[in-house]
């Protein structure tokens, strides 16, 4: 992220609830390949522009980790017609806010501003898609900034360092193993050439999705998009996004990190799991339920009940699953034991609870409550225009189509307990898992 925000690549904690796309959502494509989605919400005179590139950290070449994110920072420098910092300054002077973020599968830029300034921000956003100019001085100063960013968000936080090592163990071959911010030794050497190589290859109208949400009309957006984005040249021969695949994972992995800055130990377990695929979202929908059933609420989930209530050995036990990704994602568990419990005992109880669950199945009252909550979340989600834009952009830049987004609520409502159990049996396979312990210096040995 150019400016500080909390978020972990790929691992978006709670299920990507979606909403009905039929209402107030329009899609069209410009001749140069730019995909445009318009989400109407006329309650406030505000608009959000989000430009999503189908390129993230996992699309980097080996050896230049962090370049996708570095480039994201550099996009706030000069273009042929704007000075360095001008875009943000103009947005600010017009009362708006802007930022950008990079994840494994996408890079996105956004502004939130008064709806009558859409023309202005479209012109500037379109400009920097193709016309970036970078000096060596820009590179050197901004590289210091991203190293400060890494120091602040990763190196100063043992939990973040642990997560980084954990993800590296999760993937044997796939680039999701490499952190979005980059490994420090590679970040230190990121060059102007590396940034430009990535820019030239991926920043093009036929590799982007424009999402405009708020107090706008589709016809008006189309006209502005044609004016500002229409003239941009597409990249010819844009390669299909095929990343290296994981080999079969046949051995469980375990790791332990100790750090003097840790005072509350905890354990993390992740299983490789399928993501939402275009036209095939049923397994992912079942996994949304599975994460909720196993570790959604402290008081009612399977793990919460077992580890916080029936046999209260944990201060927290939860599960998460991020359904939106281009390639395989993961089903994740975290257990934070109380002061009287070892990580070994906590892990044993986690394993026992999971295997009991596979044997006993799902409580049908719990299943119905979750189903209703998922339906209600579609109503609440309509309240936040930015989040709606974000949801569409994330899905579309991660390989899904608008039809998949439209179908998602219904796919979620058609999940049954049987499907969830079938997917649970398939995914909860230790050979495709990583277990990690984060402990204080001299803490419990694995």
């Amino acid at each position, binding site marked *: 992220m150019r400016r*500080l925000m909390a978020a972990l690549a790929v691992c978006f904690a709670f299920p990507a609830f979606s909403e009905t796309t039929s209402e107030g959502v329009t899609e069209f494509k410009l001749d140069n390949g730019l995909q445009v989605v318009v989400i109407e919400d006329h309650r406030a005179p505000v608009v959000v522009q989000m430009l999503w590139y189908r390129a993230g950290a996992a699309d980097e070449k080996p050896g230049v980790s962090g370049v996708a994110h570095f480039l994201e920072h550099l996009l706030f420098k000069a273009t042929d017609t704007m000075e360095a910092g001008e875009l*943000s300054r103009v947005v*600010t002077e017009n009362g708006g806010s802007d930022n950008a973020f990079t994840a494994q599968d996408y890079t996105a830029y956004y502004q939130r501003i008064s709806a009558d300034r859409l023309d202005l921000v479209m012109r500037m956003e379109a400009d920097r898609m193709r016309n970036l100019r970078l000096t060596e001085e820009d590179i050197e*100063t901004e590289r210091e*900034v991203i190293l400060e960013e890494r120091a602040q968000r990763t190196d*100063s936080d043992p939990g973040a360092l642990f997560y980084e090592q954990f993800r590296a163990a999760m993937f044997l071959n796939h680039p999701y193993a490499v952190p979005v911010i980059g490994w420090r030794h590679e970040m230190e050497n990121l060059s102007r050439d590396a940034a430009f190589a990535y820019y030239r290859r991926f920043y093009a109208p036929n590799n982007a999705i424009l999402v405009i949400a708020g107090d706008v009309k589709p016809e008006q957006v189309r006209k502005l998009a044609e004016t500002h984005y229409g003239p941009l040249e597409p990249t010819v021969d844009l390669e299909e996004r095929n990343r290296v695949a994981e080999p079969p994972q046949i051995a469980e992995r375990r790791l332990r990190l100790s750090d003097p800055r840790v*005072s509350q130990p905890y354990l993390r377990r992740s299983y490789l799991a399928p993501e939402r695929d275009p036209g095939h979202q049923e397994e992912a929908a079942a996994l949304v339920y599975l994460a909720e059933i196993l570790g959604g609420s402290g008081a009612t989930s399977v793990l919460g009940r077992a580890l916080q209530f029936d046999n209260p050995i944990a201060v*927290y036990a939860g599960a998460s699953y991020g359904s939106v990704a281009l390639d395989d994602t993961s089903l994740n568990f975290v257990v934070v034991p109380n002061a009287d419990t070892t990580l070994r005992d906590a892990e044993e109880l986690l394993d026992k609870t999971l295997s009991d669950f596979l044997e006993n199945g799902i409580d049908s009252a719990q299943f119905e409550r979750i189903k209703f909550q998922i339906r209600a979340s579609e109503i609440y989600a309509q309240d936040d225009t930015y989040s709606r834009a974000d949801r569409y952009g994330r899905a579309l830049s991660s390989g899904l189509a608008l039809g998949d987004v439209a179908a998602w609520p219904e796919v979620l409502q058609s999940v049954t307990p049987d499907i969830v159990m079938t997917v649970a049996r398939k995914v909860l396979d230790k050979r495709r898992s990583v277990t990690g312990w984060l402990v204080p210096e001299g803490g419990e040995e694995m």
Partner: protein
Amino acid sequence: MMRFILIALALLALPARADVEIQSVTSKGGHKAWLVEEHSLPFVALEISFRGGTSLDRPGKRGSVELMVSLLEEGAGELDARGFAEANEALATSFGFRASRDSLNISAQFLTENRDASVALLRSALASPRFDDDAVVRVRGQLLSSLRSRQTNPGDILSEAWDSAIFGDHPYGTYDGGTEASVQSLTRDDLITAYKDTMALDLMYVGAVGDITADELAVLLDNLLSDLPEKGGSLPDRAEQNFDGGQTLIHFETPQSIARFGHGGLRRDDQDFFPAYLVSQVMGGLGSDGRLMQEVREKRGLTYGIGAYLFELDYAEGFYGQFSSQNDNMAEALDVVRREWARMAEEGITPEELNAAKTYLTGSYPLRFDGNSNIANILVGMQMEGLPIDYIATRNDKVNAVTLDDANRVAARIFQPDELTFMVIGKPDGLSDADIAN
């Protein structure tokens, strides 16, 4: 940190032509609320705040309000913790309960289709929380775990050391989650005292936004609030603040240091408030375009983010900033901050900067009013600050009325380089306790 600062600024927010029509509602039982009707989505966002918050902890009972508020949804009325959670899920309501130094806040969202049942559930949490022994043990364990984590988190250590140095014996001077010892010693009676002290009608403010009419809201208020305590605990006195212009270093083994700096601020009702707000934005805000962000990050790459903002608590006002720098960059970054503070006190701002700050503040104002929950929050904030119900329509005029002379007179008043006090945690190069007197 940037986020944190932006949120803090939101408290000061107000209006271009945001189309927000606020109604004042009074129920038969005498409960007051501000309401914005918005019938396009079938749910209501309700925000209830009680003045006082964790500053109402009784002596020796630090953490009692925090523990109490964490227990409100852990069993109420006929339901134990699990029963309450199941009812909550079955209705798909969303309840949030939190306490801060000045207030205790309850945020609720519930669907139109099951509004009565949702309100009944919320009422049980507000009016008849159980504080069951097993729930107390469980939640206490969670708070103790979080207290342990704070002990090795440099940001938390800095925050506590800063508050202690600045506020001394005032409730603001200690961490409101308490200490391991104080939290361990809390009894069920302490929780009941904390409940009666904080969740009382004489301390309460309500905002509602969504699919509900004024008449329906009046009935809802009586159903929801009629059994709350009438009168809460006694609110604290104003805080004496101590800014000595010094610099303190806390040693901590980490690759990047964190610095906080600040001195006193001014009250929201001060006649210089708007000029002060504008010049403070020129220094530490304006998105990423304030002077600090430009000088420390954009020109020199010494930090990922830096900001400074005026803030107002109920019993103290301040002007604080914070940033992180790798250990070899911290000394230089601190020099830049000092230099900019002195330059501002001496020279003030330019006409261009004044204009930029005005267009930013007036243009961003209407952007705050999006989303039922956001607006409900603003309604409560306005009431707690004592702003008139038509304030939104007048706020931008107040920003625009500030002249360059006002701004620079007030810049000289609020920027006090000699009082600017620094505290750093980490292992910064070229900085030691010997640098304390600058």
